[in-house]
């Protein structure tokens, strides 16, 4: 909600009285006799002593402990996520060997140039799979930090 506008002369005088009262109250000066400033001093006194609930004495200790707990949980999640990704990679590898076993055996009967081409293709596929795993893992780590 915007209430911004310039003060007119009358408002400027009132603002000055409010600010004089605030400064006098902070400095603990004696009242100078201006009734408007004196009234604002009474208001400033009340505003410096609002009905606030007290801060629990162990608030900082408890908050730091909660943060440490959350951090340790986060670290555990990171470790488990890393292990899960590694396990997934191994399972994918075993599955690939199982599924393409026949092809890889047949590979031995291929001529050398053909075998080289197929080997490069397999290497590229594995490279992409590993890169995807690393990217996924880094993505998770980055998302957790944010």
């Amino acid at each position, binding site marked *: 909600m915007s209430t911004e506008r310039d003060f007119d002369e009358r408002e400027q005088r009132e603002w000055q009285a409010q600010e004089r009262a605030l400064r006098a109250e902070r400095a603990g000066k004696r009242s100078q006799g201006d009734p408007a400033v004196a009234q604002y001093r009474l208001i400033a006194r*009340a505003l410096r002593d609002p009905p606030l609930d007290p801060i629990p004495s162990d608030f900082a200790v408890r908050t*730091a402990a909660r943060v440490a707990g959350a951090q340790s949980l986060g670290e555990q999640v990171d470790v488990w996520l890393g292990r899960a990704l590694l396990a997934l990679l191994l399972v994918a590898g075993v599955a690939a060997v199982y599924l393409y076993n026949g092809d890889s055996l047949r590979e031995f009967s291929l001529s050398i140039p053909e075998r080289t081409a197929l080997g490069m293709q397999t290497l590229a596929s594995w490279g992409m799979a590993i890169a995807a795993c690393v990217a996924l893992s880094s993505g998770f780590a980055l998302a957790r930090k944010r």
Partner: protein
Amino acid sequence: MGPGKPPGIDDDRVLVQAVLAGAPGAFETLVRDYQRLCWHIINRMVRHPDDTRDLCQDTFLRVHQYLHQYRFESALKSWIGQVAYSVARRHLERKRIPLAEPVDDDPWALVEQVPDGFDLEAASADQELGALLRTEIEALPPLQRTLLTLYHLDEVPIPEIASITGLSAGTIKSHLFRCRAVLRGRLQARIGGTE
């Protein structure tokens, strides 16, 4: 802030680096240094001790989580204040409590009747007047209550309040002016009514 001199920008830098490096006790020190400001902002906005405690903890959890993004472009106090203010504002939005409502009274109607004299000390000792002012202050909308507390109790300058709340300095000045004038109008009405 805790008792004594508030932390300066260099103290903040050392503290932030210590927290980021995971130094033992560093985060607890940060909480201790800024819990008062955080508590005041949230308590004045939500006015419920349990909600205040939970939201203050959430604030410091966020501070810890995002501290690596803090670039020392504003004082750490303002940065933490911003987080506290936004946490409290979201809480009010979820509860559908309006953050700021216009203070309807026309302060000039009563303020212009300047009294001949005003005995400040006698008025301070008058418990009825004290209770009236407290009631009127508590009846203000959350935003106005918070601005007045930051300015009067925490002695936060207007530009820094602007950085905490995201409001312009002119808007904050206008809220402060109007609320104090309305409070004076109501005080004047009570004094006029009892005399």
